[in-house]
């Protein structure tokens, strides 16, 4: 693809984010800023216990408060089950199973009144025994979190009916054939996505009960599917649902599912016949937003004498919390690094999700991959040590290569992993530093991730519509969500390039289901890849229409010009032109707003402005007038995972390596990142400056994941629901990041690009853990690696 288009005007250039100027002037309208006429404010009352029976709810005082328009409990709305496993209801009637459980909701004319009304609701509970550890919860006789399943059948165990299992080859034989084996247990914790804009939505019904939901979701059509299903059970079957994104203040996975607060806003809007906004405050965001899924892994790997991996065996236990959202499906992504990060012929992976009375989890940047890669890359280091091989060398020996088919049946088309590992080695002076200095150390970890879509639903399509007006403005109706990743700029670069106009001619509309074609969602690092390919397809069609128009209009325009000249100047002699140069659409091209013949791009007569053709094509006369409008629905030839969890679910895969040098203070236990090299195989850097933003941001979140971030949950309760107590990195936490961009142009990608949104985060934590081990000889296997854990481990070593 690259050879065919050698000199790009816009793709590959660091075009500024001018298209998002509203974000630097305060004009961008987020859900916080959006108001609808007559809008009410909704507020939710949450459970006071991790597990209890609701004996009674008294809403009488709340109802009497002036300004309150509705008070709802589980008794006031249909008791319909929602969620991935249909294991919860919108407002809980009889039993609460976590502190986050929604017990009642209020709509009022002002947010303060809604909050006051919530305080006036009296709920009487009867406490039930809770279970807060997944291993305890699996034991016989442990309190059951749920009594019955979605069909009302009694449940006998807290283990979810989601038996995630992947198996290839013969582990027993491979174990026997191995020269070296290592076994580790590692664990990761709950992490809040910490979007700066908290969760919120506005639900609004028209008189005919059609719903418009202003919502931050990054899966606008997924929302429609889930709400349609809900509607069919509450008497609103067949009603139209429109989901509209305001400007989204960060997503990082939080907006993948339809959350309970969204159903509550819908119920309050139905009841009051007014638009209802629910907007979380920060404390609520920490307590009621499902975070990243925690997990415990026991991983065993073996290799032969040469260091070639023989097998990988891993069992994972996931604390599912009380209900099931996407967190319980993260093992489907964990299978990818488990089976396909490095070449490994025999693989066994099993994940067990267990109900507890803790908060439940969903998606966050990486979707299970950061957790699983922490396990795999910890094991890569311990096995390398067992085998007496340098960990970087060990990774190079086992690296993935272009042309590989992995045990999961992923087809590795392009792979820059060798370059990434090598770059990290060089930039860190690996050979000089590894194992050389007490208190200082280097470590590395790599990653594989989907980078060419992810067929997790039967369609992995992405639609795009493009229309041009006669002034050369290009409207692009995007079916994805702009959540801050830079897509408005990147897509405008692609459209400008493919259509032959300039980025400033492009006007994008994101996130409106009434306008857009379908899209599987702005998730799985798929947007640039999918939307880019859709844009190229739509632009090719639009361009064809323009050039057909040009073939009709150009001769008329040119001959008309000669006629006028002759009228003014009778001496004028018409030049002898070869109109054959512009006789067919194939002979013409558009570049930088001009249409010209390919064979003579600077022809003195045949090079005309695009707008002139568009205007002449539109204002042409009765019955012949034309407009330009094209669409493309790009659905790549990928596969859903089959029952064995195998299939090539993405068109291409991203690889990368993170290398870090740390200093560990043995007095304080503090880990300081002295250098972090983040090397990524990105296919093609569409906008180098924006690409770096993804790498920096992801690496930073990864450092937080490794060292500081943890939602502290004690007996089901979130103990640190504020930025003061939840330690996200600030600008004072200087992480010297050196990005390395590897560009093995990918055949399937738009101009060769791969997705890059999630990869930067994935290998950061294990790279740091490995570096800490190199520095002090202690392996912290439980994230985050806090000073307390390091000091405790140092103390234990002394004893």
């Amino acid at each position, binding site marked *: 693809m690259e050879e065919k288009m050698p000199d790009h005007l816009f793709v590959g250039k660091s075009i*500024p*984010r*001018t298209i*998002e*100027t509203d*974000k*630097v*002037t*305060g*004009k*961008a*309208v*987020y859900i*916080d*800023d959006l108001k609808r006429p007559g809008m009410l404010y909704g507020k939710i009352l949450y459970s006071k216990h991790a597990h209890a029976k609701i004996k009674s709810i008294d809403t009488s005082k709340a109802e009497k408060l002036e300004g309150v328009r509705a008070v709802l409990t589980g008794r006031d709305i249909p008791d319909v089950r929602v969620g991935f496993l249909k294991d919860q209801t919108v407002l809980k009637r009889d039993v609460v199973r976590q502190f986050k459980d929604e017990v009642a909701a209020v709509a009022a004319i002002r947010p303060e009144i809604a909050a006051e009304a919530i305080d006036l609701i009296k709920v009487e509970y009867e406490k039930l025994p809770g279970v807060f550890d997944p291993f305890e919860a699996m034991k016989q006789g442990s309190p059951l979190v749920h009594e019955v399943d979605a069909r009302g059948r009694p449940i006998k165990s807290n283990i979810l009916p989601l038996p995630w299992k992947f198996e290839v080859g013969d582990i027993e034989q491979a174990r026997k054939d191995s020269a070296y084996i290592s076994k580790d247990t590692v664990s990761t914790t709950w992490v809040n*996505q*910490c*979007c*700066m*804009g*908290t969760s919120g939505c506005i639900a609004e019904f028209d008189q005919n009960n059609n719903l418009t939901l202003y919502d931050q979701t990054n899966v606008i059509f997924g929302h429609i599917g889930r709400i349609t299903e809900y509607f069919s059970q509450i008497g609103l079957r067949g009603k139209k649902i429109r989901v509209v994104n305001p*400007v*989204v*203040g*960060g*997503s*990082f996975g939080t907006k993948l599912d339809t959350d309970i607060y969204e159903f509550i806003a819908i119920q309050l809007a139905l009841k009051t016949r007014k638009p209802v906004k629910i907007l979380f*405050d*920060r404390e609520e965001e920490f307590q009621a937003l499902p975070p990243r899924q925690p997990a415990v892994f026991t991983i065993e790997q073996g290799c032969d004498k040469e260091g070639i991996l023989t097998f990988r065996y891993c069992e994972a236990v996931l604390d599912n919390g009380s209900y099931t959202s996407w967190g319980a499906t993260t093992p489907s992504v964990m299978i990818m690094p488990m089976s396909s990060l490095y070449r490994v012929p025999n693989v066994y992976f099993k994940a067990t999700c267990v109900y507890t009375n803790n908060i439940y989890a969903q998606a966050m940047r990486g979707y299970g991959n950061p957790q699983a890669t922490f396990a795999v890359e910890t094991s890569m280091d311990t096995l390398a040590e067992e085998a007496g091989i340098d960990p970087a060398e060990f990774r190079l020996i086992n690296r993935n290569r272009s042309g590989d088919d992995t045990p999961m049946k992923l087809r590795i088309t392009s792979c820059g992993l060798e370059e990434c590992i090598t770059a990290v080695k060089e930039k860190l002076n690996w050979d000089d530093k590894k194992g050389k200095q007490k208190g200082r150390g280097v470590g590395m970890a790599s990653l594989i991730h989907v980078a060419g879509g992810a067929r997790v639903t039967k369609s992995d399509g992405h639609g795009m519509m493009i229309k041009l007006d006669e002034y050369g403005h290009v409207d692009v109706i995007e079916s994805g969500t702009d*959540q*801050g*990743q*830079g897509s408005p700029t990147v897509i405008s670069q692609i459209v400008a390039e493919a259509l032959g106009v300039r980025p400033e001619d492009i006007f994008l509309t994101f996130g409106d289901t009434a306008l857009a074609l379908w899209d599987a969602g702005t998730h799985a690092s798929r947007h640039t890849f999918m939307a880019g390919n859709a844009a190229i397809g739509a632009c090719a069609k639009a361009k064809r229409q323009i050039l057909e128009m040009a073939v009709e209009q150009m001769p008329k325009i040119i001959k008309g010009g000669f006629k006028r000249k002759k009228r003014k100047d009778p001496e004028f002699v018409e030049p002898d032109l070869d109109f054959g140069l512009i006789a067919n659409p194939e002979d013409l091209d558009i570049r930088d707003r001009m249409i010209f013949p390919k064979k003579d791009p600077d022809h003195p007569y045949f090079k005309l402005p695009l707008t002139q053709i568009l205007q002449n094509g539109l204002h042409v006369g009765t019955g012949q007038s034309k407009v330009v409008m094209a669409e493309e629905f790009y659905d790549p030839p990928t596969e859903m995972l089959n029952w064995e969890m195998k299939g090539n679910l993405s068109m291409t895969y991203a690889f990368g390596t993170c290398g870090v040098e740390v200093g560990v203070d043995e007095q304080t236990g503090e880990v300081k990142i002295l250098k972090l090299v983040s090397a990524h195989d990105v296919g093609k850097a569409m906008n180098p*400056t*924006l690409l*770096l*933003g993804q790498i*920096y*941001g*992801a*690496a*930073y*979140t990864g450092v937080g994941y490794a060292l500081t971030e943890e939602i502290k949950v004690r007996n089901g309760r979130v103990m640190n629901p*504020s*930025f*003061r107590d939840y330690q*996200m*990195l*600030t*600008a*004072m936490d*200087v*992480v010297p*990041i050196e990005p390395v961009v590897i560009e093995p142009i990918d055949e399937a990608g738009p101009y060769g690009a791969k997705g890059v949104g999630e990869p930067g985060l994935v290998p950061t934590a294990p790279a740091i853990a490995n570096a800490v081990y190199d520095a002090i000889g202690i392996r912290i296997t439980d994230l985050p690696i806090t000073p307390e854990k390091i000091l405790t481990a140092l103390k234990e070593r002394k004893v």
Partner: protein
Amino acid sequence: MKKVSVSFTLNGDSVKAEVPATWTLLKTLREYFELTGAKEGCGVGECGACTVIMDGEAINSCLCPIPEVEGRSVTTIEGLADEDGSLHPLQDAFLKNNGVQCGFCTSGMIMSSKALLDQNPDPTEDDIRTTIAGNFCRCTGYVQIVESVEMAAKEGK
């Protein structure tokens, strides 16, 4: 609810607000003046998304009771671009250098940085990082924000 009448200068204009005495400057800006550029990211002065400049100092407007604004001069993100629409060098630099991603922290980030550049036109990286220590961002890892402020400082010279 008891209302107060507060007169102050807002983005160069003399204004008067009559709002409940318990309101903060942030609430007054967002709800009375409908200037929604300053954001509530936490409401308790931890995240800096609500940062505005009052008499030359960057403050968390979510912590500032409205009576305290009497007679003061307040600048918000909406008051930064010229009347002809041309952007302040900081706004321009944030767009050029990817200092903005989701944008939710951006208003506060730019206002903190403006207060710094007004007092110290040639800040070091450390000065910049100290200045925005109270402005949280989840998207960027701060690198390109710091670079954007450095770029704007150079531009301003």
